[in-house]
């Protein structure tokens, strides 16, 4: 019993208690507060539901949301309860004006509408500024309001989707702080799920991207568009709608209009100021993600030709899209081959898009109706480049040429030419000759390559790597094979070749490797040099002359 204990001890105990107490107390208080708040909210909400007198509570609740100054710490419970309140009100038709209603009724409706607007703005603010969990919750609540409004307010379609609330939601999603979660949630739960949401997202996006935006924003837009990769076919049944659909509105159920919206959205993005890397990545997904959406792919022409003219890797990437247009849409691209020829520059064979380019080049040059002079120019240019190319690239080039020689027999003069003109022969014997090929000519029809010979490949026949050398040797052997399958040669790398030579781990060597029979007298030093009369001529002298060890 505390009364029986001496004062001092009781004091001590008290102080001790005071010292240890507050945390648990505070927690208890916090819990109490929370419970209290919950009950308050519940009470307020009930009052609203009960009678019109309770409507004033809406204002109270809105003030409790804690979004006046900044929406960083919103009260999500209040938001949820408000969502319930408004859903109920909307469903009850309390937000719709009827012309015959009394004046005071009209005032109430107008007041409620205003509050609803406030609430919507609050939600948008939360989405823009709050933490990830609240953002996602706010998104769900907003979409719920959207649904309710569409369901119960006649003629709200235009209001909500194109100009009103959804536009704000969309902008908030795109511009939200740390919005990765929000965006992925929005895409996964709504945009991909519901066809009407997707439709209006496209609309909003086209609208949104029509003004110049920063690359980061564009990145987000591209990502969202990229995830919507299921292009509806012409007989696609549109059934999965988020909100009640106005049956008069036929646009939502037509695949064409869907695609049109997507096309608009893509075009808006493509016209925006893209960074170089974005351009490349867009070009990379052109065929699979972008082109299918387009009703009129020719609209891509501008973008593709622009990209093609940029040069370098971007041009390489634009090639396939451009080729598609030329082939399917009858695009007339004058100087296509000239441009293609100009792409064969010193960097090409060292580029990581090498195999991609060669695949395309193979398609472009596969026609047997191409002039031989043009094909010869390509062959000769490639041969020149091969002189400075890494082994994996040489390995592609030679079979590539072989196939050309097979398809365009006239070009085989580049491997085998006997001079029949006596005078010319005498002149060549006397003075030798220059390469008739003009490497600086940009028109592949005028390079005179067909008069030249492939000395470069003959040089590569003594390439240091035996496999490359033996591949280079195919052009001087009889052409018995119909064609080499290019795919087999395309994707080699240094690492792959090293692994091919060395294996992943040691297996049994089948034959005893040869060892140099003579042990050299010197490797690094000038050991015993005086015996050879001071002149270093043994093996490895080259290194010793250049380097001092």
């Amino acid at each position, binding site marked *: 019993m505390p009364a029986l204990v001496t004062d001092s001890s009781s004091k001590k105990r008290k102080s001790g208690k005071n010292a240890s107490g507050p945390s648990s107390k505070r927690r208890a208080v916090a819990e109490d507060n929370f419970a209290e708040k919950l009950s308050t909210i519940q009470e307020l909400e009930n009052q609203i539901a009960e009678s019109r007198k309770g409507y004033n509570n809406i204002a109270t609740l809105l003030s409790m949301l804690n979004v006046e100054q900044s929406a960083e710490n919103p009260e999500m419970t209040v938001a949820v309860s408000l969502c319930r309140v408004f859903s109920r009100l909307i469903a009850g038709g309390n937000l719709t004006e009827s012309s015959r209603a009394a004046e005071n009724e009209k005032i109430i409706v107008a007041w409620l509408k205003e509050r609803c607007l406030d609430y919507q703005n609050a939600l948008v603010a939360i989405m823009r500024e709050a933490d990830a969990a609240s953002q996602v919750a706010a998104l769900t609540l907003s979409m719920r309001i959207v649904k309710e409004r569409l369901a119960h307010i006649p003629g709200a379609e235009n209001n909500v989707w194109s100009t009103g609330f959804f536009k704000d939601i969309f902008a908030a999603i795109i511009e939200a702080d740390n919005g990765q979660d929000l965006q992925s949630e929005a895409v996964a739960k709504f945009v991909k799920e519901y066809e009407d949401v997707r439709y209006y997202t496209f609309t909003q996006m086209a609208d949104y991207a029509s003004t110049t935006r920063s690359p980061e924003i564009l990145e987000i837009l591209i990502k969202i568009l990229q995830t919507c990769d299921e292009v509806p076919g012409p007989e696609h049944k549109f059934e999965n709608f988020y909100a009640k659909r106005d049956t008069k509105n036929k646009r939502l159920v037509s695949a064409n209009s869907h695609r049109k919206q997507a096309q608009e959205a893509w075009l808006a993005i493509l016209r925006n100021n893209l960074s170089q890397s974005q351009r490349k990545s867009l070009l990379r997904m052109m065929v699979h993600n972008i082109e299918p959406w387009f009703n009129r792919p020719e609209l891509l022409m501008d973008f593709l030709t622009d990209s093609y003219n940029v040069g370098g890797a971007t041009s390489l990437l634009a090639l396939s899209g451009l080729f598609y247009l030329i082939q399917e849409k009858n695009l007339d691209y004058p100087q296509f081959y000239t441009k293609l020829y100009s792409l064969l520059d*010193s*960097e090409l064979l*060292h580029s*990581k898009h090498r195999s991609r380019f060669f695949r395309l080049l193979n398609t472009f040059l596969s026609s047997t109706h191409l002039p031989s002079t043009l094909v010869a120019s390509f062959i000769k240019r490639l041969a020149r*480049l091969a*002189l*400075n*190319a*890494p082994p994996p690239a*040489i390995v592609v080039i030679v*079979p590539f040429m072989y196939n050309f020689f097979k398809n365009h027999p006239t070009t085989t003069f*580049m491997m*085998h*030419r006997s001079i029949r003109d006596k005078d010319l022969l005498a002149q060549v014997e006397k*003075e*030798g*000759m*220059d*390469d008739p090929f003009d490497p600086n000519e940009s028109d592949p029809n005028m390079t005179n390559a067909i008069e030249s*010979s*492939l*000395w470069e490949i*003959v040089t590569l026949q003594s390439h240091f*790597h*035996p*496999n490359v*050398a*033996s591949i280079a040797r195919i*052009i001087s052997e*009889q052409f*018995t094979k119909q064609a080499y399958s290019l795919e087999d*040669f395309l*994707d*080699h*790398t*240094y*690492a*792959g070749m*090293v692994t091919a*030579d*060395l294996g992943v781990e*040691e297996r049994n*060597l*089948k034959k*005893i490797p*040869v*060892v*140099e029979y*003579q*042990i050299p*007298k*010197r490797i*690094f030093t000038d050991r015993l040099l005086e015996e050879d009369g001071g002149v270093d001529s043994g*093996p*490895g002298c*080259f290194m010793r002359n*250049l*380097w*001092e*060890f």
Partner: protein
Amino acid sequence: MPPSQLKQLKASLRENGVLGPQKSKKEKRQNTKTGVGAKNRNQREVALQAIRDRFNPFEIKTINKSSKFDVTTRDGNTTAGGGARPGVTKSLGEERRRATLLKEMNSRNKVGGLVDRRFGENDPTMTPEERAAERFARESQRKMRKESMFNLEDDDDEMQLTHMGQSLSFDGPNQDDFEAGDLEDAESDEETSRKRKRIPDGDEDQDQDQEDFIDYGDEEQPGRKKTKAEVMKEVIAKSKFYKAERQQAKDDDEDLREELDKELPDLFEALRGVKPAAKPAKPEAPKQDFSEMNPERAAMLEESQNSKDPEKEYDQRLRQMTFDQRSKPTDRTKTEEEKVEEEAERLKKLENDRLRRMRGEQLTDDEEDNMDEDEIPDDDESEIDDAAHFGLPAYPTETRPELGVEDEDDFIIDEDLVETDSNASLDMGDSDMEEEEEDSSSDESDGPDGEDELINGMTLPTEDSAAASTVAEVSKEANGKLAFTYPCPKDHESFLGITKSVAVEEIPTVIQRIRALHHPRLKPGNKDKLGRFAEILVEHVSYMGNKTEQPPFAILENIIRHIHSLAKTHPLNVTIACRAQLREIGKERPLNLLPGDLILLTGLSTFFPTSDHFHTTATPAHLCLARYLGQCTTTSLADLASGTFAASLSLQYQQVSKRYMPEFVNYTLNALCNLAPTEPAVKFGAFPYRKSQGSVQLAPSKKVTPRKLQFRDVTTTPFDPQAQEELKISLLTTLVSLLGSASDIWAEKSAFTEIFTPVRAVLQYLRQSLKGKVYAAAQEPIQSTLGKIDSHLAQTRLVRRPLFLHDHKPLAIKTAIPKFEENFNPDKHYDPDRERAESNRLKKEFKRERKGAMRELRKDASFVAREQLREKKERDAEYEKKYKRLVAEIQSQEGRAANEYERARGRR
């Protein structure tokens, strides 16, 4: 024309004795008495049946239509069904079904039953009497036999206590002393006991052979069962007999040996060479005897010999002698000129071999035959990879984005390579120089015994101990604290442990000692040990090179020479170790080679021929260098230095074979462009220009002069700007002179113009930008290289001709004449594709079997149906019978009742 049917019938009847001369009554009576008559009757029945069958045309199946053209059909010569007798086969099948299927049918839905396993119950050839007799015999036999080892009921002397297979009893008269070492007896004893044990679980045939075992030796009374006692007596007698025989043989051997022993002293003397006429055949004789002898006896002989000392000695000497090589006539001592000539010949041959390898030709077929297996992929695969034909992997073994190194565009910048330590001591120990002097003499003659040259100081201790001791003395004087024996290390760690306390300068001595101590001739296991040691040394070279403090290169050189000489004896080990190192480079640091890697690559070029078209180690080493040159990034001067080193190394690799290396040109031109005082504004050619990450541009000044590059430059960058400039200008001159050497090496290449036009442009640009700004010493190499390249270019222009590659003989058109087979047999299959032929055969067999099985099943089904019908009929008949019987009974009763009634009525 054959006789009529009637005549044939009569003839056959007479033949079979059915018709014959009439027998007299007396005879008949006699026959009936003896029972011959019944037998005859049986015989006659059989014969008659056969004749009936033969003369029934429906019993024999004939082909109703003869085949038209014998030649065209395969079946023409086989008379299908010609001699078939369908009736017979049918009845046989019926019989068989009755025996199997019917039984099964009857026992269907029935559980249990009795299986008669009594002896002879299912053997129809035995009469009941015979069966009974046999059963009785077996039973008595079983009783007589011992049922188990532990059956104590019958006393017997068979059970004996043994130890190691030898009997412990001494009471028998036959248990001689000599049995103690008698192996054969032990074995036979073992065998019998084993057989004995097997008896209880033996079944019929084992019993049978058990009987054989016991019954051997007395065939005179096959019918009578022997009593147990008799059997045992026999066994004992037999074993006695054998033992006596063995004893006899042993005595004989003993005699022979004693005789030989007497001759032994003579033999020894003959061997010592006192008697010139040592007969080499003599020692051979006993051995031959040995081999002829039965092995047990030989073993026995040996054992008993070992017990006696002199005999043992004799034996040992004998064995030694058999292993000794007989002396052969030596070759005539060659004169000096002949030796030199031979040596020159050998070197010439080796050089020729190298050249052939360089051209990628096959070497002598004895060692090269498995080359093809490597190169040619299986053609059986449905999809032939064109690339695989050239030795390229079927598809890239690694996916592209894995390393970041894969993409030639993106380069990894690694700061690790910039080392700041700059105190590489390059002092050279004097102690090992002495040894260097020593083995220099043997260096002159790199003979086949070259592997010994590096360990010549420490010769084999057994051979020439005096010489060894003196040399040991010398080395001891030089380095008093070094141990003389070292264990052969098993891995690199243990080698590091050994050399931890040893000064760097002493390492060659340590290696030398290890090699001497573990010379393969000393111990059979040493060869493997040294092989392992060679691998360790390879590892050690790159380890030493990577140490921040660079070891003196004389030491490294010595170690590499050691590796080289080890590589001659252990090429596989050295190759494996080098490949492991290269693999590590390729996996971990393909784009920033460490100094150790560079040293290893340099060393590698000395002990493997880099000129070979394909070499298991040199080719990957090439590739490593090329990859480094092609993809590395330049961030600092040290990078540039190591790149320059790699470039010069790659050029040294090509000194002999003169192969073209695009990466070299790319790298040197890039490096020169980066070193140039101002960045070139225009592109000079097809080489891809890569700017260095950190600026290495030369600030031209007259203060610095180019010097010879040092290996140290690879690891360390000087801080002093003056020294940096010096290094830059030296790198520049070195690179320029490298290009000059490259132009010499590749002067013969057909595309020389194309390769070196950009080079000239770069050099001209350099000359332009350095003009008047640096010493002439730096200008001079540029000028001279330009001059060299210009002259080569002019030369190339002169010899340039259009290509004339396809001057081949035209290929023969493939012929389509069918192959003519002599003695063609339509029954045989001539499919050259074995697998297809085999599969066809199997298909055919399968079809036949399938048809047969279906036929059988059909027949079975009809049989079952027939049987069921028969059963049903039987049942019906029985029922009918019963019904009739009942009706008849009732009728009779009725009749009787009627009669009675009638009677009663009548009575009334």
